[in-house]
């Protein structure tokens, strides 16, 4: 999840508790299953590489373990959860003996682990072979919560249950490495965000999804339309009348009861604490009343933090002197709060415009947040000021000001906006109910809005994607369309699947159609899912072969969202499928079955039909099939080529091509059936029986668990057998 440019620096002390030593806790796993823990919350993201613990030993505890875990949340806050993120084994016999030998003991974490700022982790100390006379003792404070963002804890049953202790903290120091501070070095983190079950989850640490606690049950993902977009280190959420922000980049300051003062800071103002030098760039303030605490969100640009009673000063856009006294220490995110326009005096809140009453479509284009989908004004789209998602004042006349618009020829009411599809900062496609429109450039500064297509609309807000060449694909009135931008959309499914729309019978009120570009397999995944049941019908459109390949997944794996996660760790850099059962999945070439929620598997029913084939090369004549040799992938003698599993082969013959089609689809009463033994070519697979008919069809398939197959070729021998009577 983390990427650091340049060489890593030597170890730096990050979090620690080293004040007020009162007593010691001890480990003795082998006898009583006693384990010790200490949670901590990094203020700065870094790679944890070593830990110092304040220890002494009794006897010879032998090999001991220090593990690092993510912290659970809610009622289980400060308790370890999930997989071990980093581990170290050390010789407990090297620790100083008895209380007189107590000292800091350094433990290296060989692989280390990247830690996210503001996320809680848990150190767990154990002595697996220790007992009552051979154990480690870890010093801790019982006085006044010496380390505020973590707790000491213990387990008496080998970690099955944990008991964090309020105000108690083990003595620890954790060290890490981070990138040099040279301006040329970039230091950033990337995390996945997923929404379902009426809440938002985010990745923390890498590979683990956790809920953003305040988001639980504060959005409606079941009965209301919802859309999200990443911008400015945040995720903006529109959920009809609910509009929220998950803020991962800012810190939060709260003023004292005197409030914001006479000079209100503006978005982008720099505020400084004269006493400590701490600085913050103001992002957003909440609406306020006189003489009441106000919340300020912003990006701290110094390592020095803000504390309660700090006086922060600056100058606002009107050159007025800002002076604010803080009522609390700064708080670290992520935060969850209402999305509204920039704070102003409550009740007089018009300075920064007004968000639409409802919205369900959102995107980022040219630094502007764009929203649409207000049922009161379905034709309307709204774009916030560039670089300021808090300003929707459309009466300003500068080039960056907010814009409200619609898509139509002059004098006509615009078509209802269904999807917003930005392509870089160059184009924005407005997918509408019955038309497609293209905005080139900026709507305030030289941009041009024109019709992309007036003969088709788009199905839904996620029924589109781009490929790596910038081609735009969308599900429209007749199936799958493709176009360049600008360009002329062409229905590319019409020839191969002329009844696609009728066959799928997708209804926007019940079905979701989602498109995604699979970088790895160079194809477009099209998923049509009944949201209520997960029943699904899907297509993989190969950009390499320009063919459609129908697919089906278990109902619980019906796809309700698709996202290519450009994770910095390639283990997670995949096309992700958000499924109907609440799990995130991906196509796994090593997996031969589909994996369900409980980790059980269900075999994939796969088949392909060949034909109808003219046996005698002349439809006036019957033919005689004299040989059929299926050759499956893989060498016969082991070797480097991966081997196919067996397939079921069925042969159908008939006098008309349509009869063959019916038989192939019905998959009943074949003229011949046999299991083809893999891999490669085998004499036992050769069909030598003579079968007469005008047309033949061959069906290969597999429905067996833990099996997968691929084909090299089919060889067929046929001969003319006489005129059909």
């Amino acid at each position, binding site marked *: 999840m983390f990427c650091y440019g340049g060489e890593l620096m030597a170890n730096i002390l990050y979090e620690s508790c080293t004040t007020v030593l009162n007593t010691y806790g001890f480990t003795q796993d082998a006898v009583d299953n006693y384990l010790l823990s200490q949670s901590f919350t990094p203020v700065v993201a870094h790679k944890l590489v070593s830990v110092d613990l304040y220890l002494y030993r009794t006897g010879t505890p032998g090999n001991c373990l220090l593990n690092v875990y993510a912290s659970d949340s809610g009622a289980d806050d400060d308790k370890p959860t999930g997989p071990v993120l980093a581990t170290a084994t050390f010789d407990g016999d090297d620790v100083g003996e008895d209380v007189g030998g107590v000292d800091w003991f350094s433990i290296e974490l060989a692989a280390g682990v990247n830690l996210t700022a503001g996320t809680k982790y848990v150190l767990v100390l154990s002595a697996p072979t220790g007992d009552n006379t051979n154990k480690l003792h870890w010093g801790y404070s019982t006085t006044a919560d010496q380390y505020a963002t973590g707790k000491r804890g213990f387990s008496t049953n080998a970690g099955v249950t944990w008991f964090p202790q309020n105000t108690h903290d083990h003595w620890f120091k954790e060290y890490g490495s981070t990138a040099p501070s040279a301006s040329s070095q970039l230091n950033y983190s990337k995390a*996945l965000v997923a929404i379902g*079950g009426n*809440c938002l989850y985010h990745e923390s640490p890498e590979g683990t999804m956790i809920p953003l606690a305040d988001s639980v049950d504060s959005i409606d993902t079941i009965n209301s339309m919802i859309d999200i977009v990443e911008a400015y280190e945040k995720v903006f959420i529109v959920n009809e009348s609910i509009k929220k922000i998950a803020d991962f980049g800012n810190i939060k300051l709260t003023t004292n009861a005197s409030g914001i003062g006479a000079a209100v800071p503006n978005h982008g103002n720099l505020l400084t604490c004269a006493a400590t030098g701490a600085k913050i760039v103001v992002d957003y303030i909440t609406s306020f009343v006189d003489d009441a605490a106000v919340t300020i969100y912003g990006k701290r640009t110094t390592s020095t933090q803000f504390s309660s009673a700090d006086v922060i000063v600056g100058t606002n856009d009107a050159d007025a002197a800002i002076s604010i006294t803080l009522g609390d220490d700064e708080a670290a995110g992520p935060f969850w709060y209402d999305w509204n326009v920039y704070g102003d005096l409550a009740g007089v809140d018009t300075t920064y415009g007004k968000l639409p009453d409802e919205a369900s479509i959102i995107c980022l284009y040219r630094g502007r947040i764009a929203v649409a989908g207000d049922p009161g004004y379905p034709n309307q789209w709204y774009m916030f000021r560039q670089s300021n998602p808090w300003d929707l004042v459309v009466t300003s006349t500068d080039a960056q000001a907010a814009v409200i618009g619609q898509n139509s020829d002059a004098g006509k009411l615009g078509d209802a906006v269904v999807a917003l599809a930005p392509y870089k900062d160059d184009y924005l496609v407005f997918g509408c109910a019955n038309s497609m429109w293209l905005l080139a450039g900026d709507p305030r500064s030289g941009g041009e809005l024109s019709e992309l297509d007036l003969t088709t609309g788009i199905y839904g807000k996620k029924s589109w994607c781009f490929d790596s060449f910038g081609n735009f694909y969308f599900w429209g009135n007749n199936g799958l369309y493709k176009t360049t931008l600008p360009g002329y959309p062409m229905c590319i499914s019409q020839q191969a699947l002329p009844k696609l729309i009728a066959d799928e019978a997708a209804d926007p009120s019940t079905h979701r159609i989602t498109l995604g570009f699979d970088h790895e397999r160079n194809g477009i995944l099209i998923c049509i899912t009944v949201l209520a049941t997960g029943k699904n019908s899907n297509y993989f459109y190969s950009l390499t072969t320009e*063919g459609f390949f129908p*697919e089906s997944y278990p109902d619980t794996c019906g796809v309700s969202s698709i996202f290519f996660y450009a994770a910095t760790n390639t283990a997670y850099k995949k096309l992700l499928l958000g499924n109907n059962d609440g799990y995130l999945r991906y196509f796994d070439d090593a997996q031969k079955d*589909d994996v369900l929620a409980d980790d059980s598997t269900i075999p994939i029913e796969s088949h*392909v039909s060949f034909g*109808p084939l003219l046996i005698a090369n002349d439809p006036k004549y019957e033919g005689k099939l004299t040989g059929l040799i299926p050759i499956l992938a893989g060498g016969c003698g082991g070797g480097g080529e991966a081997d196919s599993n067996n397939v079921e082969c069925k042969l159908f013959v008939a006098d008309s091509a349509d009869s063959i*089609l019916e038989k192939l689809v019905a998959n009943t009463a074949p003229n011949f059936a046999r299991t083809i033994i893999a891999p490669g070519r085998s004499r036992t697979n050769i069909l030598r029986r003579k079968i007469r008919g005008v047309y033949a069809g061959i069906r290969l398939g*597999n429905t067996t668990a833990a099996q997968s197959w691929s084909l090299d070729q089919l060889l067929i021998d046929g001969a003319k057998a006489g005129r059909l009577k």
Partner: protein
Amino acid sequence: MKLSFPVKGIHKGVAASSQPEMTSPDMLNVRPYDVLERKVRGGQRGGISKLYARQIGEVASPIVAICSVTVVS
């Protein structure tokens, strides 16, 4: 007669007697690239696996939106 996998996918748009080359009138859960060697020779699609152990929302409810967020440290 030598037949290769119909790598041009499903095709239902012409008379059955004129089925275009390299297409199939009926197929399911197969792709042109096989999962064994990633060769264009056709085969069963890969399985769908869970990438993250945790169920979003702790309930069997659709994941309706996904994105990533990048934060400068």
